């Protein structure tokens, strides 16, 4: 029998490839996890609180209680993700030891380290990280992230920041692809990205890992918008279980993500959903309330 390799880049990135075109839903208990799975979620994110409640609660937001994560892992057969604080090596190792399928090194939680992110290539478990631009995306890949997502502005139900981040990454990739080879080092310096990855992106014409939309997706139309801007899939945090009828809402978002250009269908799906979560205008957030500036 041939050699068996676990935790390789292909195995970790491949896991994210299998999530493409899907919706990953935030859940806080087994019941919500089962609703998400039945609605067609490709994975769930096990949390103690959804981002909008983290905003309300204030204080320090940490990795969820392992009991909640275990409860969710036992409730569903789809992959279970969980969040660790930026730079919190111990939280990440604990989640890995529990057998969580993916770790989100997330700005939704209070950072544990304001200078250094995790060295994610050291782990067998794959990581997803947020990014606002190509430089941040490539720094995270350089550290070993196997999947990316926009940061957006979590828990706001306002899509504007996720749109900004998705467009920014894609337009920087477009600019990079027009650069000649002797311009790449300067480009790498200007965006603060590893040179080798800049070269790779120029050759590929796209990111080497999957990039999902996250942070502010509140309606089926929001999900469709992000897919049409080139997202590989969608994270929905507070949007589903803060809406009036989570089951219907979850199903509608899944179908809108698959059929993101079928606007007549999305119109049908958007009927009878009740109230979506109440949103927050970004300019009403104070500097210290913005989560997207956490990490660099």
């Amino acid at each position, binding site marked *: 029998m041939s050699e068996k390799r676990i935790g390789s880049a292909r195995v970790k990135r491949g896991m994210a490839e299998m999530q493409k075109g*899907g919706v990953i839903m935030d859940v806080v208990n087994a019941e919500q996890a089962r609703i998400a799975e039945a609605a067609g979620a490709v994975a769930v994110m096990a949390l103690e609180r959804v981002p909008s409640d983290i905003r309300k609660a204030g204080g320090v937001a940490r990795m969820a209680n392992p009991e909640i994560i275990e409860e969710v892992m036992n409730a569903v057969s789809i992959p279970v993700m969980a969040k660790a604080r930026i730079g919190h090596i111990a939280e990440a190792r604990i989640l890995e030891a529990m057998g969580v399928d993916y770790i989100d090194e997330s700005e939704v939680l209070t950072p544990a380290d304001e200078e250094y992110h995790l060295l994610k290539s050291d782990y067998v478990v794959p990581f997803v990280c947020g990014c606002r631009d190509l430089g941040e995306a490539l720094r995270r890949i350089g550290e070993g992230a196997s999947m990316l997502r926009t940061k957006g502005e979590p828990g706001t139900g306002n899509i504007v920041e996720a749109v900004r981040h998705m467009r920014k990454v894609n337009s920087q990739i477009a600019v990079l692809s027009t650069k000649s080879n002797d311009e790449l080092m300067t480009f790498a310096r200007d965006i603060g990205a590893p040179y080798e990855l800049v070269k790779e992106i120029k050759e590929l014409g796209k990111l080497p890992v999957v990039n999902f939309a996250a942070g502010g997706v509140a309606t089926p139309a929001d999900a469709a918008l992000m897919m049409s801007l080139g997202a590989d899939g969608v994270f929905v945090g507070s949007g589903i279980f803060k809406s009036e009828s989570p089951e219907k809402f979850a199903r509608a978002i899944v179908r809108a993500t698959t059929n993101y250009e079928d606007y007549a269908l999305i119109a049908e799906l958007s009927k009878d959903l009740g109230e979506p979560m109440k949103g927050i205008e970004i300019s009403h957030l104070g500097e210290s309330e913005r989560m997207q500036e956490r990490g660099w």
Partner: protein
Amino acid sequence: MSKTIGVLDLQGAVREHLLALKALGVNAVSVRNAEDFDALDGLIIPGGESTAIGRLIREQGLEDRLRAFHKEGKAIFGTCAGLILCSTDESHETDDLRLGFIDMEVERNGFGRQIASFETSLTFAGIDQEVEAVFIRAPYIQSVGPDVNVLATYDDKIVAAEYENVLVTAHHPELTKDYAVLNYFLDKIR
């Protein structure tokens, strides 16, 4: 004449299959609606989440068309989630879609969670050299019915099989540049 192969485009690793088919000079198309099946010589059901893909097959109204396509004797290749969907899997009580194209019982996530996902190379019946194989939260086949052809095993577990016009693998050939298994599938059509 060049063959046309569809990739079921509801969720999962659709792009990788399309790129692999194109690399082999095959006319590859994405399939999302019932009428898309008409032009196809064969279909690939990709890896992804079997619960999500199964649900979307039903909601998009594709189940009957898929069954008819199978009855016409057209070639079908299911990888990972596609394997689960093609199974009968009568030993598990589930509301999830099982198309029953191959008489076999499956163990979902049979090798464990993501931290146990792995890559290796496999001996594959009908292919001369070992094939590169990436297993991601992969299922394995617990048992097969009569006349089902077992093509590969790993750690004494069945990971590839075929029956008449249907081929299934627990691993993901589309994540590698090793096109041997895909060529094996295309030979079923030629």
